[in-house]
């Protein structure tokens, strides 16, 4: 009986975290897609120089996101790690974080009146505790993206004034 209650509580908890987690993910993806359309005209490249272009001014821009996975998906990924293979649960997490960070960087470039980002760099670091017992406490991943935003001399006003 005791065991059944505990198991039941675990299942309810897992289902709840799965539900809320999926809802948050879906909402986030929707927001990302909308914002990506707004910034679609701002080109990001990891070339260091642009041939035959006059540049008016430049600024360093960066964007960062700390993101974590819901409990249910972490649980599933934990099981999956016994067998190895593709961790489907983690893939959208990193994809979301990268896209969000890029969008933040683009937004910063836009406010500085720039129309392109060159020498784009991406960095990933884990904010987790190495301690196994407290490992549930922070399993966040930080994505940092940065680059040099430039304003080309020939281009007129920004598209979104």
């Amino acid at each position, binding site marked *: 009986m005791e065991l059944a209650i505990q198991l039941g509580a675990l299942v309810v908890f897992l289902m709840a975290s799965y539900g809320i987690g999926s809802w948050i993910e879906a909402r986030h993806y929707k927001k990302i897609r909308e914002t990506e359309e707004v910034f679609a005209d701002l080109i990001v490249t990891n070339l260091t120089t642009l041939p035959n272009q006059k540049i008016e001014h430049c600024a360093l821009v960066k964007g960062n996101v700390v993101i974590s996975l819901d409990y249910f998906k972490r649980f599933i990924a934990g099981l999956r790690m016994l067998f190895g293979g593709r961790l489907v649960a983690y893939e959208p997490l990193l994809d979301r974080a990268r896209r969000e960070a890029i969008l933040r960087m683009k937004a910063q470039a836009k406010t500085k009146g720039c129309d392109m980002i060159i020498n784009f760099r991406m960095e990933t670091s884990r904010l987790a505790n190495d301690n196994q017992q407290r490992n549930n406490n922070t399993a*966040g991943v930080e994505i940092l993206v940065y*680059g040099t935003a430039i304003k080309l001399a020939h281009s007129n006003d920004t598209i979104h004034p």
Partner: protein
Amino acid sequence: MILSNTETIPGKTVLEIYGVASGSTVRAKHVGRDFMAGLKNLVGGELKGYTELLQDARQEAVDRMIAQAESMGANAVVNVRFSTSSIAQGAAELFAYGTAVRVE
């Protein structure tokens, strides 16, 4: 102060190179934020507290790098790089470095 992570400032010529300027800060998360992030961790999604913490800390590292570059007499920093390392349980060092130069 102009910052860039390319080897030169686009559209400008480098007149003089002063050497490496760097700035760092070590930050730990505080209990309240850690608790909230712990709750957020159950359902997943962005941990806003940590995002802001790291953003502020990185900005401080950049400001310190700028201050150092200024004391060298530079007016720009090129080839800026960031590095993050966790040095202890719950604490991270954020480091920014680049080459201090003078441009026209």
